[in-house]
């Protein structure tokens, strides 16, 4: 791992959802200790862009330069198993990512009092906190977050912003798609609206059926 290379470099990227191009010509880069907030109206392709960068779907065109084994992805769902306790859920992800400690994550997201509760009995906000605590136990420097503050109250949102800030100060990076203000003053903002894909020309529309 060299400190000189840019950990995430996206060049002229085009992504598609359900076979239709939604974004094109997206370029940005993220250096160590920086955060980038993606904004845009519903359906403009924020989730699709994040899933493409996370490697869950192929890009239409363009180039994604991402350090191997650097990324931890958190989507709309938390991936929390209701039958397992909070500790067991976190311990599982720690084992998968080959890290050892889950205590910091429990303290940082205020989950210590809940740690022996089955995750199925948690409220939506508590589940979300558990989902976000998972990012800490992955030990990965690049967080790719899709609407991380859904169902969090103001205090938990501040707690989350604090965790992201600490992560950035430790040399980490965050790529966040969100609608609300996270209180991360240092984060750059990228509005995706100008990158919306042009609707395909309708000239050869009939040919698709012939």
């Amino acid at each position, binding site marked *: 791992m060299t400190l000189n290379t840019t950990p995430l470099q996206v060049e002229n990227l085009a992504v598609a959802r359900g076979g239709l191009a939604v974004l094109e010509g997206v370029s940005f880069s993220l250096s160590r200790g920086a955060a980038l907030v993606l904004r845009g109206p519903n359906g403009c392709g924020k989730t699709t862009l994040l*899933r493409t960068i996370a490697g*869950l779907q192929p890009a239409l065109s363009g180039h994604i330069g991402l350090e191997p084994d650097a990324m931890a992805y958190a989507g709309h*769902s*938390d991936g929390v198993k209701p*039958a397992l306790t909070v500790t067991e859920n976190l311990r*599982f992800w720690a*084992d*998968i990512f080959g890290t050892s400690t889950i205590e910091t994550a429990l303290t940082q997201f205020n989950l210590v009092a809940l740690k022996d509760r089955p995750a199925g009995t948690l409220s939506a906000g508590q589940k979300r906190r558990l989902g976000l605590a998972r990012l800490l136990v992955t030990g990965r420097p690049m967080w790719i977050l899709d609407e991380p503050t859904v169902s969090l109250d103001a205090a938990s949102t501040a707690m989350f912003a604090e965790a992201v800030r600490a992560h950035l100060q430790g040399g980490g990076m965050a790529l966040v798609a969100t609608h609300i203000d996270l209180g991360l003053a240092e984060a750059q903002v990228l509005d995706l609206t100008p990158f919306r894909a042009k609707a395909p020309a309708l000239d050869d529309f009939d040919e698709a059926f012939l």
Partner: protein
Amino acid sequence: MRALLIRDLRLAVRAGGGFGLGLAFFLIVVVLIPFAVGPQSALLARIAAGVLWIGALLACLLSLDRLFALDWDDGSLDLLATAPLPMEAIVSIKALAHWLTTALPLVVIAPVLAVLLNLPAAGYWPLVLSLLLGTPALSVIGTFGAALTVGLKRGGLLMSLLVLPLYVPTLIFGAEAARRGAEGMAYGTPLIFLAGITCGTIALLPFASAAVLRVNLR
């Protein structure tokens, strides 16, 4: 990888995990058969091996649709796909967990249920051996079917339609080995074929399952 296996085993035995469902189904099917065909012990002895194999196969099918569906619903499949585990390892572990929680109990209980069907004494060892060799193939093929239909609403039925034809070779050689054993004939050849099918599926299908899972995650 061990963490994933332990998690899946733990989830299976916790509330709502469905452990024992296949076992109960197997028990009920085997108990119902004598009621349907009548108490003729000679007839029962002749069909016992086949009935036990069909019962085990259907019981295996029962819990397959939950294999990836639960992880799909709560988003852990996305997270696992971006984790440092290769997809091939994930599907192999899932198949192993399914075999341990569903198929292995069936293998263990089969000789007990064979008593109900009046299986001749010579047939017990070949029955257990054929199930032991054949059920891993059922789990691996079933994992492929589950990976194909993950994310589909009511995909379980479609999965059964896709998977059952693929089960035919395993069923033919497995039931044949058990039947030959019960009739006191040599059963080595079908057993070797069965082992071959199982080895082949274990070697090849995880790659296919991983590929279709990647496509389904898009």
